């Protein structure tokens, strides 16, 4: 590969990597918050994200299409509804499936297994509903506004949607960080994350805080789903699975439980993935294709877990003995 070609490919690859990374980061926030508060990997989060994407696409296709609203407003409306639906779903999962297990003396693996159950159930439930109306692979409706090219370098441009994603994801991260660090609710969330028992003794309603954590994580997933559908142009009942795994990887990479960690981890992972997906096939003459980028992502996950389980920004935790 010529140096010239590499130089030409680099800017768009980095831009795509950044966008992808921001999407991972927004999904990772949900994992990291629930993990921080409960120590639980909410496997269903990837499907809550997927439902958000489906809801947004359906709304834009059937309800908002042809409305006189500006495309950005349409997208914002779809985002709000998707966030509400995803939040409700996350809350429902917490109420119906996770909370009962915290009360009872359930086996240690029980919440994990239930979470996987919810994840599978949601995949097929969405497929079922979508199948009743025809195709379950849904394209994002054509909205030319989001494809308007904006110049990046003299030779390259990025579409408007990238800017929209950049702004929306940035706002989410900043907003969440503010909520957790500066508000009363945030203080309660941090208290529950540090020591659930002590927090409840201090008069904090732990179940309420856990529920709010799920609601916030769910709402973020709904917004992330909308952005994801916008970026990749289609959504189906299984399109939550891989991004979910990647976002979890991002959360671990950045340090699970840490909000800036989720952001850093997401962006790093997105960049690595895009760089590998673009340059490794070229370097190896397509012997190692783009398909391998998932393998690289999981390889990173395993390496991080072995050598720095606390992630880039996480704090070491010591079990009490």
């Amino acid at each position, binding site marked *: 590969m010529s140096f010239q070609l590499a130089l030409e490919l680099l800017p768009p690859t980095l831009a795509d990597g950044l966008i992808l990374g921001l999407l991972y980061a927004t999904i990772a926030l949900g994992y990291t918050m629930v993990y921080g508060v409960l120590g639980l990997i909410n496997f269903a989060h990837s499907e809550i994200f997927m439902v958000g994407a489906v809801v947004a696409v359906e709304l834009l296709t059937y309800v908002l299409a042809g409305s006189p609203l500006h495309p950005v407003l349409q997208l914002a409306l779809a985002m709000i509804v998707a966030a509400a639906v995803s939040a409700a779903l996350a809350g429902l999962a917490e109420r119906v499936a996770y909370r009962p297990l915290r009360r009872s003396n359930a086996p240690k693996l029980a919440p994990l297994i239930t979470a996987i159950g919810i994840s599978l159930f949601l995949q097929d439930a969405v497929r079922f509903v979508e199948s009743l109306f025809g195709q379950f692979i849904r394209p994002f409706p054509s909205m030319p506004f989001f494809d308007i090219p904006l110049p990046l370098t003299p030779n390259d441009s990025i579409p408007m949607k990238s800017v929209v994603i950049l702004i929306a994801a940035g706002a989410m991260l900043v907003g969440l960080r503010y909520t957790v660090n500066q508000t009363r609710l945030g203080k309660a969330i941090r208290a529950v994350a540090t020591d659930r028992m002590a927090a409840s003794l201090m008069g904090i309603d732990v179940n309420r805080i856990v529920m709010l954590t799920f609601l916030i994580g769910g709402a973020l997933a709904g917004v992330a789903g909308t952005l994801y559908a916008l970026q990749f142009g289609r959504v189906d009942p299984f399109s939550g699975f891989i991004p979910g795994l990647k976002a979890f990887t991002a959360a671990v990479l950045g340090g699970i439980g840490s909000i800036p960690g989720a952001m850093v981890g997401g962006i790093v992972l997105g960049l690595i993935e895009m760089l590998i997906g673009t340059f490794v096939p070229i370097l190896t003459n397509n012997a190692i294709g783009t398909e391998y980028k998932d393998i690289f992502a999981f390889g990173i996950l395993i390496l991080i877990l072995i050598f720095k389980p606390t992630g880039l920004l996480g704090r070491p*935790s*010591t*079990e*009490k*003995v």
Partner: protein
Amino acid sequence: MTDNLLLDVSNLRKSFGGLTAVDNVTLKVERGSIVSVIGPNGAGKTTFFNLITGIYRPDVGAALLDGVDLVGLRPDQVAAAGLARTFQNIRLFTGMTALENVVVARSMHMRSGYWGALFRTRAYGNEERSAIADASQLLGFVGLTGKADALAGSLAYGEQRRLEIARALATKPKLLLLDEPSAGMNPQETEDAKALILRIRSELGIAVVLIEHDMRLVMTVSDHIVVLDYGSKIAEGGADDIRTHPKVIEAYLGRGVAARTATSESETVS
């Protein structure tokens, strides 16, 4: 250094974040002796145990058991080296019977292991039988003969403490660390605990290091007492030295007892 030295801990230090939980502690234990580690809550006693049993890794310092360096070993390797322990907040396998709890601790001395279990070799059967026989004997030693088949979680509190000791003894230790063996016990049970500790030395020839708050127990069983406060060793010596040591009195009574009781009961710093 005499041949009689069993445990030789020197200059052990561990910090968690900004807090130095154990600071430059040195401890020597001779064969067949009983040593007590005392100090107010939060003095770093349990952390000290965790450091020499491989649960935490010390930042600085050395710990030799019979010449074997314990620093850097995993907890199971420490146990294999001959150092066994009990836990302050009893950690039994509650879903297993008393006998099984003890037999588990015997596993590392069983050689026929996995393949023996799969093919039920004669050697496996013999080992299994002798492990069970040893475990039964140990249960008898701590006075739990009739409780062998009871689930550990269903035993009374004092029985659980004794079962934990039997389990630790099953690893065939050279040195036994007891973390508050008489905590939560009534005077009679404390007497029994004391008798048991003395018998561990006299009948099994195993040295004992105990963390203890019951001063009567400490003063009557210990050959040597070490006092920790804020992670540092502030005094050591025989019972009489300690009783009258000004720093000890200050640590226990001098500086605002009320203030200290308001802080966490937990020994650990995380």
